[in-house]
C-alpha cells in the first residue's frame, strides 16, 4: 500500500519509521474498531496516511451499523463508515466524485465551503435534483482553494444519521503553515432517536431536551445549588418574556452522544505524536446542532486557519466552534498524554480524545464546568440600566420584515459581539478565541467598498419551534435573494432570537467585517450571537442559485433557509 504522508521539511520522525507505524495501525484498524470508522479516524492514530494526487473518488451512501458502548443502531454511512472517508486532493486538480445512493430515499452530498459551479454544490431543490435511490451522480469541479473543509448530506435529516466526512485540499504551492504531523479532529453529535422524532419533540415541547431548568429547589438552596440560580426577580423577567435562560442548545446530551472522529468519550480517540513535533489539528464541527468549547488543558493552541482560510496565528487556550465551522490549530506535541476536551456549549456533555506520545495512555478528563445561562444582553432588550457588552455602542433596530406567529422576539437594541468569545466563555481565566482575533493572512482579493447593502434578520419562535429569515420560512419565501453578478455587497445580519445561529452561505466566502480591513477573515459559516448585529462583505462572483441557511440542522429543517441567486441584471 502506497502511503504518502504530508510531512514538512523539519520532520523529526523518519519517513521510514512513520510508514512502519502507519502500517501497523492500518493493520490494527482492521480488527480493532467496534464501529466501522475510516482509516483516517482509526482509534489510535499516528497521523493521516494519504494517497497523493487522487482526483477521483467513489462514494457509496448506505446503511451502516453504529455501536457506541452497549448501544447499536443503523446509521447512514459513506463507504460503510461514520464519519465518511477523508477526501484529500490538491488545489488546481480537477476532481470527480461518483456518489452512489444505496438508500431507499433520495440523498445528496454538499461540499461545505468549496468554490465550485452551483450545479455541483449538491443541495436538492436549490442547485440540483438530488440523487435518487439506486443511482449514481458524478460531481466534477476544479479545486480552486486549499484548506480544511468537510462534506455532508443536504437531504432531510441524513446529516444527523452520519452522512458527513472531512475534506483536505493541499495547497498547490508551499503551505505557509509548517507542521510535522497532522490529524483531522471531526466533532459530531449522535442520537439513537429518529431525527424526525427529535424534531417532532421540539415542535411539541420546546424544552424537551433541556436537562437543567431553573428550579425552585435550586433557588432555596441558593449558592449550594449544582448550577447558578437566578434570583426571583430575574426569573420573573424571563417568565414574563415567555423565555428560558437555560435555552442554550435545542438538543442536548439528554439524547446526544458526542463524537470525536466517530468515537465517544469512552473510546478515547487518540493522536499519537513524538514530543517536540509541531502537530496540526484540523478541527471540524460536523454536528447537527452542537457548538463545542475546545481546549487541551495545560497546552497552548495556535489558531492558524479558520474555515479553510489561513489566518494570522493567534495563541489561545480555548475556542468555541460553531456548527459547520473549522479551525486548524498548531500545538507542540506533549511529552505526556493530554486530553483534547470538547465540551458541548450547554455543558450537558462532552467528548474527549487524547494527544500523547504513547498509544493506550490518557490524561485526566476535566469535569464539565457549570452550565452557562443566557443573560439580559442576549435578549436585546432596551433596558435603560443595561450597558452594551464591553462598552459597545448599542443601536436601535428597525424591523421592516414579516412579524407573524413565527417571530417571538424583536431585538430592540443590537450590538457587535465580535469580541465576545461565545456563550459561557466570557468569564474564564484564560485566552479564548473570538471573532475579533481573526485576520486573514493574505490580503483579500477584492477590496472594493460595497456598493449595495442588505439587511437580514434571523427570526424565530422557540415556543412553536419555527425558524426563519425576516420572519419568512423557506416555504413562504416567494423569490430568491438576488445578488447582482460581480457586485460587492454588504450584508448585515441582525439576530432577533435568543440563540446563536451559524449562518452558512454556499458557493462564496463572506468577509467578516471585524476591523481588519483588507485582511477581514473569509468565512463560509458565521456565528451570529443573540442580539448581535454583524456585517459581512460579499463579492458575488459565483453565478447560480445557492443555499443560504442556518446550519443548525433542525433550524434549517424548520425553515431558516433561503436561496441566493447570483445573476446579471437589475435588482428588484
Amino acid at each position, binding site marked *: 500500500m502506497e502511503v504518502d504522508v504530508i510531512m514538512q521539511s523539519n520532520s523529526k520522525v523518519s519517513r521510514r519509521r512513520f510508514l512502519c507505524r502507519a502500517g501497523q495501525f492500518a493493520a490494527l484498524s482492521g480488527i480493532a474498531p467496534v464501529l466501522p470508522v475510516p482509516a483516517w479516524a482509526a482509534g489510535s492514530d499516528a497521523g493521516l496516511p494519504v494517497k497523493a494526487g487522487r482526483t477521483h473518488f467513489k462514494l457509496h451512501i448506505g446503511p451502516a451499523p453504529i455501536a457506541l458502548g452497549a448501544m447499536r443502531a443503523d446509521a447512514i454511512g459513506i463507504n460503510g463508515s461514520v464519519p465518511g472517508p477523508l477526501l484529500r486532493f490538491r488545489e488546481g486538480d480537477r476532481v470527480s466524485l461518483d456518489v452512489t445512493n444505496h438508500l431507499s430515499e433520495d440523498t445528496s452530498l454538499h461540499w461545505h465551503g468549496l468554490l465550485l459551479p452551483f450545479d455541483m454544490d449538491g443541495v436538492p431543490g436549490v442547485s440540483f435534483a438530488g440523487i435518487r435511490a439506486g443511482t449514481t451522480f458524478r460531481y466534477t469541479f476544479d479545486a480552486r482553494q486549499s484548506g480544511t473543509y468537510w462534506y455532508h448530506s443536504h437531504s*432531510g435529516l441524513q446529516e444527523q444519521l452520519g452522512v458527513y466526512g472531512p475534506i483536505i485540499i493541499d495547497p498547490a504551492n508551499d503551505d505557509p503553515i509548517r507542521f510535522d504531523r497532522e490529524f483531522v479532529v471531526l466533532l459530531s453529535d449522535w442520537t439513537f432517536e429518529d431525527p424526525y422524532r427529535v424534531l*417532532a*419533540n421540539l*415542535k*411539541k*415541547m420546546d424544552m*424537551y431536551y433541556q*436537562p*437543567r*431548568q*431553573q*428550579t*425552585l*429547589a435550586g433557588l432555596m438552596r441558593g449558592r449550594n445549588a449544582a448550577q447558578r440560580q437566578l434570583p426571583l426577580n430575574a426569573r*420573573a423577567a424571563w*417568565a*414574563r*418574556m*415567555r423565555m428560558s435562560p437555560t435555552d442554550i442548545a435545542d438538543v442536548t446530551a439528554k439524547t446526544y452522544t458526542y463524537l470525536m472522529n466517530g468515537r465517544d468519550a469512552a473510546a478515547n480517540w487518540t493522536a499519537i505524536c513524538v514530543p517536540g513535533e509541531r502537530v496540526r489539528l484540523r478541527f471540524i464541527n460536523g454536528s447537527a446542532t452542537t457548538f463545542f468549547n475546545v481546549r487541551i488543558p495545560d497546552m497552548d493552541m495556535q489558531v492558524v486557519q479558520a474555515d479553510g482560510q489561513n489566518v494570522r496565528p493567534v495563541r489561545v487556550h480555548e475556542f468555541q466552534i460553531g456548527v459547520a465551522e473549522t479551525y486548524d490549530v498548531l500545538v507542540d506535541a506533549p511529552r505526556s498524554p493530554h486530553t483534547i476536551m470538547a465540551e458541548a456549549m450547554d455543558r450537558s456533555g462532552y467528548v474527549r480524545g487524547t494527544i500523547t506520545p504513547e498509544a493506550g495512555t490518557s490524561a485526566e478528563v476535566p469535569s464539565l464546568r457549570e452550565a452557562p445561562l443566557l443573560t439580559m444582553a442576549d435578549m436585546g432588550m432596551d433596558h435603560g440600566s443595561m450597558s452594551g457588552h464591553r462598552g459597545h455602542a448599542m443601536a436601535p433596530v428597525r424591523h421592516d420584515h414579516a412579524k*407573524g*406567529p*413565527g*417571530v*417571538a422576539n424583536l431585538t430592540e437594541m443590537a450590538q457587535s459581539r465580535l469580541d465576545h468569545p461565545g456563550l459561557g466563555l466570557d468569564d474564564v481565566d484564560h485566552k479564548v478565541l473570538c471573532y475579533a482575533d481573526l485576520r486573514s493572512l493574505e490580503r483579500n482579493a477584492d477590496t472594493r467598498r460595497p456598493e449595495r447593502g442588505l439587511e437580514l434578520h434571523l427570526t424565530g*419562535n422557540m*415556543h*412553536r419551534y*419555527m425558524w426563519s429569515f425576516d420572519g419568512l*420560512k*423557506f*416555504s413562504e419565501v416567494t423569490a430568491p435573494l438576488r445578488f447582482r453578478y460581480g457586485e460587492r455587497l454588504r450584508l448585515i445580519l441582525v439576530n432577533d432570537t435568543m440563540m446563536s445561529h451559524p449562518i452558512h452561505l454556499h458557493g462564496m466566502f463572506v468577509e467578516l467585517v471585524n476591523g481588519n480591513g483588507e485582511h477581514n477573515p473569509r468565512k463560509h459559516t458565521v456565528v451570529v450571537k443573540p442580539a448581535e448585529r454583524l456585517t459581512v462583505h460579499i463579492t458575488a462572483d459565483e453565478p447560480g442559485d445557492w443555499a443560504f441557511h442556518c446550519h443548525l440542522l433542525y433550524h434549517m*429543517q*424548520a*425553515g431558516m*433557509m433561503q436561496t441566493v441567486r447570483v445573476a446579471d441584471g437589475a435588482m428588484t
Partner: protein
Amino acid sequence: MIRRSIALTALILAPCAVLADMDDAISHAWTQADRLEYVADDEAGVWDVQGYYGGDYHKFWWKTEGDVNAGHDDEAELQLLYSRAVTAYFDWQLGLRIADDGPMNTAAIVIGLKGLAPYLVELDVATFIADDGDVRLRAELERDFILTQRFILQPRLQVDAALNRSTQLGSDAGMSELALGLRLRYEWHRKFAPYLGVSWARVHGAGAREFQTRGLRDSSATAILGVRFWF
C-alpha cells in the same frame, strides 16, 4: 341539529386538508392527556384530553373532557376546532362543541383563544354559543412551577360562566362553576408523569340550588390521583 353539526364540522376541517408538505411545513400529530384522574371523594374518573394535527399555522384541534361518576349524572363534551396561529404565542380556535350535560345533549359554536400568556401561564378561553342563543364562557389557566428537574407543581383554575339565563338548562346568568386544583406531578419521562393533587370546586347559581335540593353540597374539596401524558 345533527345535520347542521356535520356541515359545520366539514366547514371547520376544510382548511386543515390543504396543509402543505414542504420540509418546514410538515404536519405533526399531538395528543395530550392533561388530566386523567381519579377523584377520591366522588369516586369519579375525570378525563381532559386534547390533541392536534397540523402545521405551524393551521391545525385541526380536538378536546374532550368529562367524568364518569358512580353517584350522579356523567358529563362529557367534545370540541372539534380549527386552530389558527395568530400571534407568537396564541391561536384562535373556532369550531363546534357537542356536550352531554346530564339531562340533555347540546351543541354550540366555539370561539376560543388558546396559548401561552406572559409569565408562562397556559391560557384557554372560549365562548360557547348554543343554537338557542345560550352563551357561556369558560376560562382555564394553568402554570407549571418547576420544583426540581422532575417534580412540577401545577396550579389550575377553571371558571365557567353564563352570559344569559337559560330556560332550557334552567341556569342563571353569571358564574356557574369555579374549580381550583393543585397537582404535583413527577416527570418520570417528559411524556409521562403521574401526579397527586387536591381540587376544590364550587357550583354557583341555579346549579347550586339544584345540588341543594338533591341534598348535595355545592362545593367540595377532594384528593386526586392521576397521570399526565402526551405523545
